[in-house]
């Protein structure tokens, strides 16, 4: 009982110490770098995950995240407090990823395969929760989805990441992508179909290879 009370007190103290995001944004917009540091800590996981999903590798995601935060700091003065901060953040993130993707396509360097160098790291976390077979299945699924995502056009990829991975509504996705809900629905539908076709083909090829090996 005493422990529960102590935890409640700690939670209350933590929530009191936490500055609201709007306050941090105001301070950061007026040049307070400490406040901006707090904003970065608050949003770094989202930004990094989004850039990684869009660009497909850690190095590019790191560079993109850095660019995103610099842009956020530069344009924070123009941010409307009535707007959703994370929607605004996603818009900037997607724009930065689009620029980097465009540079990459001009350099004839397509999306790198997401899995391979960093893919297995994610499963190390779950290794104690599941057996080796389960880890292997998840790893294969992950590789398959990553490759399927890499095949998608950038707009469809952005739409499906925001809708199915980040869990935003279609209207929110449309707002972030500066598009209509109908267009976003069409993009999402097309992306899901393409992923399914790719996955079906991937599984068939895998089975054939296993049969050949046997």
């Amino acid at each position: 009982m005493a422990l529960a009370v102590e935890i409640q007190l700690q939670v209350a103290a933590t929530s009191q110490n936490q500055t609201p995001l709007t306050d941090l944004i105001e301070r950061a917009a007026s040049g307070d770098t400490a406040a901006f540091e707090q904003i970065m800590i608050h949003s770094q996981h989202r930004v990094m995950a989004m850039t990684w999903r869009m660009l497909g590798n850690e190095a590019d995601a790191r560079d993109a995240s850095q660019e995103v935060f610099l842009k956020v700091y530069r344009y924070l003065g123009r941010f409307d407090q009535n707007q959703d901060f994370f929607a605004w953040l996603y818009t900037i993130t997607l724009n930065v990823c689009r620029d980097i993707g465009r540079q990459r396509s001009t350099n004839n360097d397509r999306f790198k395969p997401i899995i391979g160098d960093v893919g297995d790291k994610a499963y190390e976390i779950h290794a104690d929760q599941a057996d080796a077979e389960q880890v292997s299945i998840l790893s294969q699924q992950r590789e398959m989805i990553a490759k399927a995502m890499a095949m998608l056009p950038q707009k469809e990829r952005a739409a499906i990441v925001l809708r199915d991975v980040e869990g935003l509504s279609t209207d929110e996705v449309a707002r972030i992508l500066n598009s209509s809900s109908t267009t976003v629905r069409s993009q999402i539908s097309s992306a899901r179909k393409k992923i399914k076709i790719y996955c079906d083909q991937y599984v068939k090829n895998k089975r054939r290879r296993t049969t050949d090996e046997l």
Partner: protein
Amino acid sequence: MSCKHCKEMLPLFVGRDLDESTTHSVAAHLSVCSECSLSENEYRELMMMIGQFSPPAFSDSMFAGIRQRVQRDIENAGNAPTLTQILADYFRPRFGWYVAAALLVTIAGSAVFFTTVRNQNRPLIADNGTAQSIAPHIGQSIESQSPEAFPDAARPVDPPQGKVVKTTAGRAYRSHRGVRSVTAIAGNQLAVKTESKTTLAIPAATNVAHISAAAAVESPLKMEMQTKDPNVRIIWFAHPVTKQNSRN
């Protein structure tokens, strides 16, 4: 609803992206069609896999590195000169030179302007040759004209030396090229001919013109003009230059 139409709708149906009526239609079809139902299950599995499409766990040191680089870039951007400063730095060393050049151009322009204006307003002044040749012609003019011929003469002036020409026509002739000869014609006009024959006739606002020319070559040529206002008279002297001097 046909199977084809249902399969078209399935990607949106599993994500609850369809409107209510279409959702009901698809659900009704799925309850009776096993093939479409199987496809629906595959889409649901796929949605689950996409939802698990998470990045690897990034280390705190990596995030700290990103934040550090961002802060450093912000500091560098803050120290970076603004556009105004860049322009000021670019123009400051040259500013003195620009001012000096502008002053020089202004002074040169002013000099040219005033010289031109002065030349335009300069009264007729005979050079040495003219001075030599003007005297006999003036004398002729005086002799041929009587004092009664000048009713507008306000105030005849006695010249200190030389002869006086009076004219009622009040016309003087100016030239920008210099005077080569002066002759008295038609009794009351002075005609000044220039070498280039670009004689410019400008009516002067005078009623009486007194020209006092030195008989001697070395003495200065005095010219007087009486304006309509009897209180205002214009007098000027021309220093004749002898041919010998001009040769030297």
